[in-house]
């Protein structure tokens, strides 16, 4: 007995449904189980920050180079804050509500994303490949000269970036100071 059908035919005498023995279709606005689309998720962790009961957690594993976004439905309160803050629209609340199960393991869903590897030193960054790629697509809006400069730096890890560019800066500055010093009158 479809719920929508009942509310259209109001002259039906018996108003209860045989629910577990017959399927029940909930309205589409029902805030049910949140589902993460693994193709869209970039692993930013905004959902984990916004989630009030901490049902979504993000775990970074540097040994294997993986970032795991884990949602535990046992703590989910179906509020929809994760849906509001996701920048990619990867997590959405469906209207599925039959979540009861005797095994706790059924209530865990994990999205595993590879971490970005630094091309110079080979260490893993805390960002995923998709996050870096996403940053890259955002940066294509910048003017040409700035883009070139940033492209040299953005795929390196922090240490490498510091080593490569600070050393260069230091050398440049020392050279400038030397030039400046040699140009003074005394």
């Amino acid at each position, binding site marked *: 007995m479809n719920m929508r059908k009942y509310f259209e035919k109001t002259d039906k*005498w*018996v*108003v*209860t*449904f*045989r629910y577990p023995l017959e399927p029940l279709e909930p309205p589409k606005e029902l805030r049910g189980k949140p589902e993460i689309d693994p193709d869209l998720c970039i692993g930013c962790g905004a959902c984990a920050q916004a989630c009030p009961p901490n049902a979504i957690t993000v775990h970074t594993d540097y040994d294997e180079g993986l970032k795991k976004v884990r949602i535990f439905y046992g703590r989910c309160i179906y509020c929809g804050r994760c849906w509001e803050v996701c920048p990619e629209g990867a997590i959405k609340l469906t209207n599925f509500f039959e979540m009861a199960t005797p095994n706790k393991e059924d209530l865990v869903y994990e999205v595993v994303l590879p971490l970005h590897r630094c091309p110079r030193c080979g260490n893993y960054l805390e960002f995923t490949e998709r996050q870096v790629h996403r940053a890259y697509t955002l940066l294509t809006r910048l003017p040409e000269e700035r883009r070139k400069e940033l492209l040299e730096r953005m795929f390196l890890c922090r240490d490498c970036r510091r080593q490569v560019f600070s050393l260069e800066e230091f050398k440049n500055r020392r050279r400038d100071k030397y030039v400046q010093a040699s140009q003074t009158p005394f």
Partner: protein
Amino acid sequence: MMDYLVYLAWSIILLLTALIMAPLLDGVRRVIRAKVQRRIGPPVLQTFYDLRKLFGLPSLIPYRNYLLVLVPYLVFFVVVLLSILVPIPFVISPSSTVDIISFIYILLFASAILIYAALIIPNPYSNAGSIRELLLITLFELFVAFTIVGLAYRIGTLNMYLLGIRYGWTEYYLKPSTLLLSLSLLIIAYVEGAYTPFDIGEAETEVLGGPYLEYGGKYYGLLLYALLIKRYVLLALPVSLVFVSPIINYVADIFNGFTLMVLSYGLFIIFMFLTMMLFSVIEAFNPRYRVDIVYKPILVSALIPIIGFILGWFGW
């Protein structure tokens, strides 16, 4: 010899009828009540399932008193005995050996065992429930007494079997006194059966659990079964006197003995279901009385059998 065989056969049939009809009638009552409340309700056989479940549960002994374990068996036995004595017109059953005063007496005996047993248990809930039930029975005795006396006087006999047959005769049935007494019989079935306005003893949403409180598992199953059979017996009395008897008497000359018995039995079953449906609808629309406001309706309604008796005295 033939007579004894017929008695035996009908005793067994009546016993089995009681055992099967009692939960079935309760199922019908629940289904009708659910439909009145606009919901689907349980299947008709639900009470059988409930009883089966209860008999499978571990049994609790009330308050460490092993003597009290006898109570469910006693009550059940008494009530089953009564079910054999139910009068169905023209059916040769042991009802011809008993009179209506003994019938009512045995019925009250069953209630009394239960109530006094509950008073022994030092549980304030069951005590309070028993006292309320006792009060209700005491108040109602006036009504019952006048009904019995009125019937006996009007129909001229106390024997259950003869009452069943003669009740439907036209010179008795269509008189105003008999009609009032018929109404009284139906009211007795309703009030003594503890349907909702009068289930004061067991009012479980009002702090109490009544006399059934301390029993669990198969003892509670037996007590529940006994209550259902008691309701069946109480209902059988007005059904066979008021509804079945006139119809059977009308067609008595057409059919012979055996067909008449079967017809009578069949009509009895049908009218039991119909009357239970009526009771269920009445029950659904009434909240429960409180023990101090119930005495006025009961005492005032005792006027019905009293007037019936007085009219019968004058031959109307």
